[in-house]
């Protein structure tokens, strides 16, 4: 892979050039958090953010989008959600999340809605620095080797730019004079130093290797009942997870006419009606059963099938779940190392 240098002052001119014809999405501030948003004012772009509220999959498969415009005669495919975009500032864990979704959407039947959007979205990755919730090192998703067109490592004086695809190379060639092909030994040393320090900055760790067995061994453990009791079944964990994909399809008929839309919108396996069939039979009526499905899927099932967890260590569930049920608390509970405050509270709530 070709690696070149970009001076920090040259970033905005570069973004200017590449966004002339294509919408640029990047992390910008929203309250005290960050979101991916279409932007033309590059000074708004947050270069040192950790996780955005929602993962970048919201741009490929928005929370609700139209699959078809319908009338009495036909279904007209609607790919308006998949317009060409450049997505800037995607962190390694989130790129891994997209790789998991890529793989998923290519299994058995190809999903044209995802694949078309993916094809039309250029990914410019950006390195990041972990906070107290990140654990991408445990999932080995703190480094990234594929799944992006360009990747920028944010060093002190310059960006190191990995060119990951032919389209990425095309972006560089729009203004090659902004880049420097010659890396000095000093540059390489400063990258190595950055990498060592960044790796040391991860503050906690989860043993994912043990998870598939533990999920199996503790399948009937009391801990699920306790968690189910605390869970609000709000679906937030799924909404913020970079690898969640479940959805519903709804027909929307316009008033007074024969026209309508078929809309696909996010669903979550923790919601009550997720496994309910017509007639009222619900295969997962209990919240504990639905939580178990979520965590079996993340920590065991995906590993059985594809050899790695479908968790990328972004920490979103940790900062989002209103009652503190997340990969860390559940993972630690499976390992038998309950986090004192969380479990003390849970115990109190359950026995109350």
């Amino acid at each position, binding site marked *: 892979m070709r690696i070149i240098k970009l001076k920090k002052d040259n970033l905005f001119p570069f973004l200017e050039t590449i966004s002339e014809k294509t919408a640029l999405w990047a992390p910008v501030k929203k309250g005290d958090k960050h979101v991916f948003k279409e932007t033309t004012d590059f000074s708004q772009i947050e270069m040192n953010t950790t996780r955005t509220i929602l993962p970048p999959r919201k741009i490929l498969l928005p929370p609700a989008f139209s699959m078809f415009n319908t009338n*009495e005669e036909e279904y007209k495919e609607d790919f308006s959600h998949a317009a060409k975009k450049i997505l800037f500032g995607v962190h390694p864990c989130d790129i891994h999340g997209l790789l998991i979704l890529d793989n998923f959407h290519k299994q058995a039947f190809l999903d044209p809605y995802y694949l078309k959007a993916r094809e039309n979205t250029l990914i410019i990755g950006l390195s990041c620095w972990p906070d107290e919730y990140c654990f991408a090192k445990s999932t080995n998703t703190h480094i990234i080797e594929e799944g992006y067109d360009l990747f920028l490592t944010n060093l002190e004086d310059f960006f190191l730019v990995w060119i990951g695809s032919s389209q990425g190379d095309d972006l560089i060639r729009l203004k090659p004079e902004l880049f420097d092909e010659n890396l000095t030994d000093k540059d390489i040393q400063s990258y190595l130093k950055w990498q060592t320090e960044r790796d040391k900055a991860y503050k906690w760790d989860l043993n994912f290797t043990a998870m598939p067995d533990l999920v199996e061994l503790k399948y009937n453990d009391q801990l699920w009942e306790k968690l189910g009791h605390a869970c609000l079944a709000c679906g937030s964990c799924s909404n913020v997870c970079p690898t969640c994909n479940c959805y519903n399809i709804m027909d929307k008929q316009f008033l007074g006419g024969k026209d309508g839309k078929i809309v696909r919108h996010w669903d979550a396996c923790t919601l009550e009606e997720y496994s309910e069939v017509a007639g009222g039979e619900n295969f997962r009526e209990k919240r504990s059963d639905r939580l178990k499905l979520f965590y*079996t*899927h993340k920590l065991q*099932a995906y590993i059985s099938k594809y050899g790695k967890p479908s968790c990328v260590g972004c920490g979103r569930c940790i900062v989002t779940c209103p009652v503190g049920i997340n990969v860390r608390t559940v993972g630690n509970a499976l390992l038998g190392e309950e986090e004192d405050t969380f479990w003390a509270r849970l115990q109190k709530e359950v026995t109350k």
Partner: protein
Amino acid sequence: MNGEHKIITQSNPFIPEPARIVRTYHLTEDVKFFQVRIVDMEKALSFQYKAGQFAMISVLGAGEAPFSISSTPSRPGLLEFCIRKAGSVTNAIFRLKENGLVGIRGPYGNGFPVEKMKDKDILIVVGGLGTAPLRSVLLYCLDNRDRFRRVIVLHGAKKPAEMIFREEFLSLKQREDLECHLAVDADDTGKWTENVGVVTTLFPLVNDIDPANTYSLVCGPPIMYKFVLKELVKLNIPKDQILMTLERRMKCGVGKCGHCAIDYIYTCLDGPVFTYWDVLHMRELI
């Protein structure tokens, strides 16, 4: 479970194919029979499926839901479904009359392993609407009668009026190459000449089972599995020769929407036909 998935209809797997209702009538008070034909004749004839597979049926404005195909692939061109009025989609389907249009996409799922069932005894046990998917494989066996040894059907319903395809099964009883036993839990008509009792009371009527060479196919309400499986295990039928077809919520049929997930498998791709062996090793199946 098989890994081979083929899309028969359009290239965007979500686009339904318009199909016309050729014939519809009530099978019971809340279950209707629908015979449909894909409007495009070429596609109608090339819609190849396996017994036990399902299709997504849609009504514009109401939505889409999965239904077992009740017809047999040995009679191509027309597709048949038994549909119970249970929700908004089925309500919309029930309002349609003959010549009305629905959308169809599929076929989906693994279906029954009819190749493996060749030269074996076939023991079909159905209850209630479980008849829908198993009628497909029963008709398939009858259309290819010389490929199978004994074919036995045990069919149970709550009462005579609720027996799906009652007349069809009563007439099948006349066939000499088929052992067909019918039962109702209770006879409220006083005219029922067949057995009275739950479906498991029919087992003693079946003589000389050769368990190693028997495939048993089961479908019915969840409560039925518990008792029927016990009987089949008692007969020493190998657990991987006991097949059942399961119901799950499905929005896509193509392994993407997630609703039918069980462990690491999707009922719409790796099911809906599972063996009793699968059930013992996969949680939540039944």
